[in-house]
């Protein structure tokens, strides 16, 4: 049986909830991704970690879901952190001009070395692709 592509870690990391996303994240998986993020936002979390370390593919639909969640997080004074190491996904972020818009980290250790509680003031703006 295949692993579920979206799973919420039972424990948070550095106080932030973690949504783990695996495999190919396309328009078939995007609704589950959106649901997972919406549940966390509705629960009052303004900062969320999306772990894409084991994701291998990300299309514009999935990216649109992440952008929507990022806007909501920042509107609430928080941030959406992406853990990404897959070059293909980094390239998608770069092509769409979103690599510097998202808070992108290469590992959880890298994430923990930064202040993850509040979004930088200059990022508290409406998010849109360049």
């Amino acid at each position, binding site marked *: 049986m295949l692993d579920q592509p979206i799973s919420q870690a039972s424990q948070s990391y550095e106080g932030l909830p973690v949504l783990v996303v695996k495999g*190919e994240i*396309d328009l078939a998986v995007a609704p589950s991704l959106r649901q997972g993020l919406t549940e966390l936002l509705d629960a009052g979390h303004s900062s969320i970690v999306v772990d894409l370390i084991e994701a291998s593919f990300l299309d514009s639909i999935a990216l649109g879901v992440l952008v929507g969640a990022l806007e909501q997080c920042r509107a609430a004074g928080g941030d959406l952190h992406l853990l990404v190491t897959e070059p293909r996904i980094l390239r998608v972020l770069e092509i769409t001009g979103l690599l510097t818009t998202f808070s992108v980290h290469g590992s959880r250790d890298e994430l923990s070395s930064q202040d993850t509680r509040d979004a930088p003031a200059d990022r508290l703006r409406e998010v849109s692709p360049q």
Partner: protein
Amino acid sequence: MMEPVGEAVREEAAERIEISFPALPDLVVLARFAAATVAARAGFDIEEIEDLRLAVDELFVSLGPMAIDGCMRMVLERSDDTVSIVGSFEGFAPRGFRTEEKGQDETWEKAAELSELLLDSLVDEHGRETRDGPPTAWLRKRRTLAK
């Protein structure tokens, strides 16, 4: 950019494959698989194949929400160094796909802009055709060494 894949390409095609399948999101993987297979047969390297896999996904995203009972149709043509793909939905119904889901419309609006950026970067040419029949999107990608 709006010019569809023409007869000139078709005449040169060494291989032409047509597939259709129900317009279900979890079947888009079939489109990616078909594109990758044809790209490999055209001698694309792994990076180019991965570009085409993403591009064909974006091709169908660019057509908008799918009709619930619709069908995805895909024509792949391979010449010596070029892969051309035409995608369309039969039974296309704008806003007809799971619009009851919260956030669906906003997601598609964001994705359309992102999809255009990705297609611009991933393939040599792409476009949409909406004149006769259901909306159709097409792309063309040449092997790097052939450029």
